[in-house]
């Protein structure tokens, strides 16, 4: 199958766009509990998430494209996470950081939602209680891989 010159150029543009997207993933500060402290350590100089492109963590969901759910999700907090996810603009990705966000963790009880993926679609799960900052950095690189391979994230990528 031959590619027309126009398609070749568009293909290249797509790659450039994905490279740009993956190199500047800005997370939303969704720090809930202990994992949030490890997320802060990831921003700190020893682990330094800025070298992967996440230069700033935005507090407003309108300005962020990655939601790192770091911590246990209580019953009251569930609707708020959904609302914040809806407020984020496409394309958007979600990392479920830690055992509590991934599956309820050590808290198999009435108060904790057993996995944030019951509320929002998750792209990468990070195990650990809390995961070391290296784990979160690896998750960010996985997200970058997903972006470069064409997963645009958000509603459009989910059939």
């Amino acid at each position, binding site marked *: 199958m031959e590619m027309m010159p126009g398609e070749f150029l568009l293909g290249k543009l797509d790659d450039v766009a994905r490279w740009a997207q993956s190199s500047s993933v800005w997370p939303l*500060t969704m720090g809930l509990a202990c994992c*949030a402290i490890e997320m802060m350590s990831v921003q*700190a*100089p*020893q682990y330094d998430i800025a070298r992967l492109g996440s230069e700033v963590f935005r507090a407003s969901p309108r300005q962020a494209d990655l939601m790192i759910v770091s*911590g246990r999700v209580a019953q*009251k907090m569930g609707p*708020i996470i959904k609302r914040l996810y809806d407020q984020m603009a496409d394309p958007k990705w979600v990392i479920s950081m830690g055992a509590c966000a991934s599956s309820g963790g050590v808290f198999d009880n009435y*108060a*904790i939602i057993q996995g944030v993926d019951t509320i929002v679609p998750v792209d990468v799960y990070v195990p650990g209680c809390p995961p070391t900052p290296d784990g979160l950095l690896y998750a960010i690189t996985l997200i970058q891989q997903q972006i470069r391979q064409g997963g645009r994230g958000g509603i459009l990528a989910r059939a």
Partner: protein
Amino acid sequence: MKAPAAIPPPMGVDVVETTGNTMTLSLGPQHPSTHGVLQVVVEVSGETIERAEMEIGYLHTGIEKSAENLFWTQAQTVIERMDYLNPVGNALCYVLAAEQLLGVTERIPPRAQAIRVLMTELTRISSHCVWLGTHGIDLGAISAFWYIFDIRENVLDLVELAGGARMHPNYLRIGGVNGDVPEGYLAKLDELIAKFPQRMREMRSLLQNNPIWRDRTIDVGVVTPEDAIRWSLTGPALRASGIAYDVRKAFPYCGYDTYDFDVPVRTEGDAYARFLVRLDEMDQAMRIISQVRKRLDTPGPIMIDDPKIAPPAKETIALSMEALIHHFKLVSEGFRVPPGDVYQAIESPRGELAYYLVSNGNNRPYRVRTRPPSMYNLQALKQMAIGNLIADVVVMIGSLDPVFGEVDR
């Protein structure tokens, strides 16, 4: 998430006459500077707050209920996750309370007590580092965050080396600690003790005499001693108002009465005073750590020698029938704690952390009621915020240093 239809009048607060021309604003629970999931609903007239009410519960985890369904040693894992900046402290308070009920407090080996004090003070330093870094970010002093978290990494390295994890090491046990410090640990500890004064000087130089920092924290959130008692403030917030109540001095535990340290106190009661008190506390914590370091030179057991509580050494399980049986019983059923109730308090970086622990003779805790210092410290905000600007609320929350894992449990 929605502001309540009418904010009920806060209890115990002198209600000012509202100007009538107010707007109700909700800060949080998603907000960069509420230190976690807190919702502050304020009624403002312009920028001045006329009334403030807080909604908590966004991190309610049911830890107390979970602990009632786990063995005594297992319950420690969930309890450690309450105040997540001070996991070793939560564990310490819990094991001390359980040891009181077991009646073995006197039999805990001195080396175990020393290691417990070491871990607790290291955690105090790392907790104050997080407080200062985030307090700085809230006020715009972002450079402070970078320097301070670097110090915190050095401290966490030591916690990880002995305990196995940076946060929630689950290193303490009812009866002692889980394993001695590894080889080479004391040398690394010496390195930290040697370079800490220089790092503290750096930390102080960043903020202590910074005119912007002083402008934003001096005379903000003043708490008089009477109010501090009424609102049950404890910890640095109480000591910054002049009342030198420190659980380590008033009700010593773990041999704190054998260490030489001061309790920093200020009388101004504002955010700057709380800032200075916590910085001084970091210095005092390192002073205690140097004294512990000397005691760690003498070897000794690190776990009580009671086979009903302490699991046998791994090497003996293959050789001794009794060891095998004890190990099996401890793992499958846990041990039982005699019935009774106890109130055990420790000095956490936030104040008096205490557990009211009830046992009914079973192999699980019957009730672990937590006295969370952050929850009581935070309530004072209802009064402190009145008459101040919204920007000051951020300063006040930071200076009270709440941790929501503890407030909501």
